[in-house]
């Protein structure tokens, strides 16, 4: 029983933090408000630092680490507004490592570890709300393989990745599974979304009878467990990033409040400001607790994984929302100017809040899981 990170994990976190502090900045991110949004140099740097190899097994040239090792890194990504598709590639890596065939692992893992392969999950559909069971994309059996059709939205950096990891149903009312396809394969068209998070990119991707073979399907066939894990991984990654965004916003707010003079004293000495910051800290720290615990649940995979993951996504979503809103408020007038970075954090937090299910959806999942656990006890 130990709820702390190891010395190695802290050391790794320090190196990531220092590295991002040196090599990445919101000013650089602002150069990507137009265009593909993909930063080649950052990708190369992340790859050299070994981040993309973290979840790859050692036998395939990776570090053989897990979600607990990733938690602090993801939080740091949130703090620094690191753009995709790094996190997305990590989510896909975890799935390929756990559910891929030996051939798939051997073919894909070394390329992921070296930074040569970028992957984006394609999950959401406009008609389905946040309910994966409502997935309409379908892989229809055809000869030795499947013809894949459907319309996915919010596919991150779809024009900058090498593979899409598509959630689809196998047969009209069949089980869910995951298919890996190159974005350029025949039958795939895409268009960029206009996004609230202006420093991110995502696309609407239409798949129209895309020919896929057994080798394209993760694990060689339907894999509903892999789909659930992909969604849970996304929820945990979003939670940890939200904790990072919120932590940064609290720091910005405290710094600003401590130096902004009104009425002859720093506004940080006024209870209206300082008490709010204290409440922000309490929800931030509890959010971090939730995100770390959920990372452990993904790594250890206990029977309560779904409940633990949803606890984090619901709590961190609410916490990040209120911390970003309050952080902007504490900045007063300059808080709502384009020049100040705070709106970029607010936008990112909002994107993460609605990614992989909103707080209400996850609260309902916590309730269902709790009732099942009570019945089982």
């Amino acid at each position: 029983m130990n709820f702390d990170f190891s010395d190695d994990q802290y050391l790794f976190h320090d190196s990531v933090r220092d590295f991002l502090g040196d090599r990445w900045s919101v000013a650089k991110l602002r150069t990507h408000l137009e265009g593909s949004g993909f930063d080649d140099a950052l990708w190369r740097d992340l790859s050299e630092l070994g981040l993309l190899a973290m979840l790859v097994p050692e036998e395939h040239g990776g570090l053989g680490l897990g979600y607990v090792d990733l938690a602090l890194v993801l939080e740091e990504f949130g703090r620094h507004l690191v753009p995709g598709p790094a996190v997305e590639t990590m989510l896909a890596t975890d799935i390929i490592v756990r559910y891929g065939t030996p051939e798939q692992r051997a073919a894909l893992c070394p390329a992921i570890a070296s930074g040569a392969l970028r992957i984006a999950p394609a999950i959401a559909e406009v008609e389905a709300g946040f309910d994966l069971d409502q997935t309409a994309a379908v892989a229809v059996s055809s000869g030795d393989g499947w013809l894949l059709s459907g319309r996915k939205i919010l596919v991150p950096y779809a024009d900058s990745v090498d593979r899409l990891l598509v959630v689809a149903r196998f047969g009209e009312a069949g089980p869910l599974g995951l298919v890996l396809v190159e974005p350029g394969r025949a039958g795939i068209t895409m268009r960029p979304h206009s996004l609230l998070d202006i420093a991110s990119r995502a696309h609407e991707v239409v798949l129209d009878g895309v020919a896929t073979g057994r080798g394209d399907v993760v694990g060689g066939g339907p894999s509903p467990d892999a789909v659930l894990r992909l969604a849970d991984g996304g929820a945990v990654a979003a939670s940890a990033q939200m904790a990072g965004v919120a932590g940064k916003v609290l720091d910005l707010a405290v710094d600003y409040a401590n130096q902004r003079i009104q009425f002859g004293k720093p506004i940080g000495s006024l209870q209206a400001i300082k008490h709010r910051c204290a409440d922000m800290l309490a929800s931030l720290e509890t959010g971090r607790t939730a995100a770390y615990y959920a990372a452990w649940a993904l790594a250890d995979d206990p029977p309560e994984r779904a409940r633990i993951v949803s606890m984090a996504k619901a709590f961190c979503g609410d916490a990040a929302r209120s911390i970003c809103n309050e952080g902007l408020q504490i900045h007063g007038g300059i808080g709502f100017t384009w020049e100040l970075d705070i709106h970029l954090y607010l936008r990112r937090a909002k994107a993460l809040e609605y990614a992989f299910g909103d707080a209400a959806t996850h609260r309902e999942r916590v309730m269902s899981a709790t009732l099942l656990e009570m019945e089982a006890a």
Partner: protein
Amino acid sequence: MDFSYSPEEEAFRSEVRAWIAANLPDGWGRVVHEPEDEDARYMFRLDWEKKLYAGGWAGLSWPKEYGGQGATLVQQAILAEELARAEAPEGLNIIGRNLTAPTLIHHGSEAQRRRFLPPILSGEEVWCQGFSEPNAGSDLASIRTTAIRDGDHFVINGQKTWTSFAQYAQWCFMLVRTDPAAPKHKGISFLLVDMASPGITIRPLRQISGESEFNETFFDDVRVPVANLVGGLNEGWKIAMTTLTYERGPEDALARQIRFKRDLMRLIQTARTLPRGRGKTAIDDPVLRQKLASSVIEIELMRLNCLRSFSKQLQGKPLGPESSFQKLYWSHTAQRMYETALETLGPTAVLAAGDPLVPGDGQFQTGFLQSRAFTIYSGTSEIQRNIIAERVLGMPR
């Protein structure tokens, strides 16, 4: 207590409705919309304002001697309701109508009223507000922009910020320091400044919503005739309090309520059609219905708070510090509504204007971003709470 309308009032409503139907641009709201470009949009709004003036609807309840129509506040409210029902364009000269005018009516000289009020109504002169400075936001009384007497002029030097619509304005009312030696509230005067005066530089401030209605405004040896002083020398703070009371008061709130309610109704319409799988739409979700209902309640009560305040004013009770409660109430109410709007949109909450899949053309996302400023401008919520606690509840400083 009576929320019904007399036959005369209903007749007036018919007249208003007919005029609006005849004068809105053909295809308004279906094929004709506000221009995308921000400058063009504001000029479009100004044109509409001038059309309203030409139709005799501007300053409906103002005194006739200043260009008004001498109508009742109820008629004024009916006009507002009908414009809202038709989703007519907004105006541009909000500051002139809502702030300059009541301030001059309370504190201006007769000459100032006759000179400045009519062109506000006609849309010939748009106004902007020069109060805040970079180091004088919540602590407004610490402004540093100076006005030094030189013959029959004041010479202004300094910087203002958050000067809304400065780029479209012909005139600016502003607070300046005329006695640096006096205690900070005592050395301030209230001046009317021609924006065409030499020495004024404007730099737009882009907001998080992408719009730029606010500006930084620099004053470099700007000369203003002494006749443009409102009230007495060094009496500007008291006058500013009147301006702020109107800025935060029920008239401003009611105009906003109409826009918020329009957005809320559009949101509910959107929720009725937004798919959520299994043949259900967003409006079928009991959890979301609770949040939408909260907004229905809060936005409707915003209107009734305004009416309650108007009824008091009608009985001759002046608008006082309790207007701060209107501002506090509506700003947080609206923020909650736009958060609920995003929750209603579900996965598409993260899209933005311009995406073919974003419900309501992205207006809810824009509204959300704009709403973050509601609790900051016109006095932050923290300032409103100070005013309410100290001046309404009598709590100690």
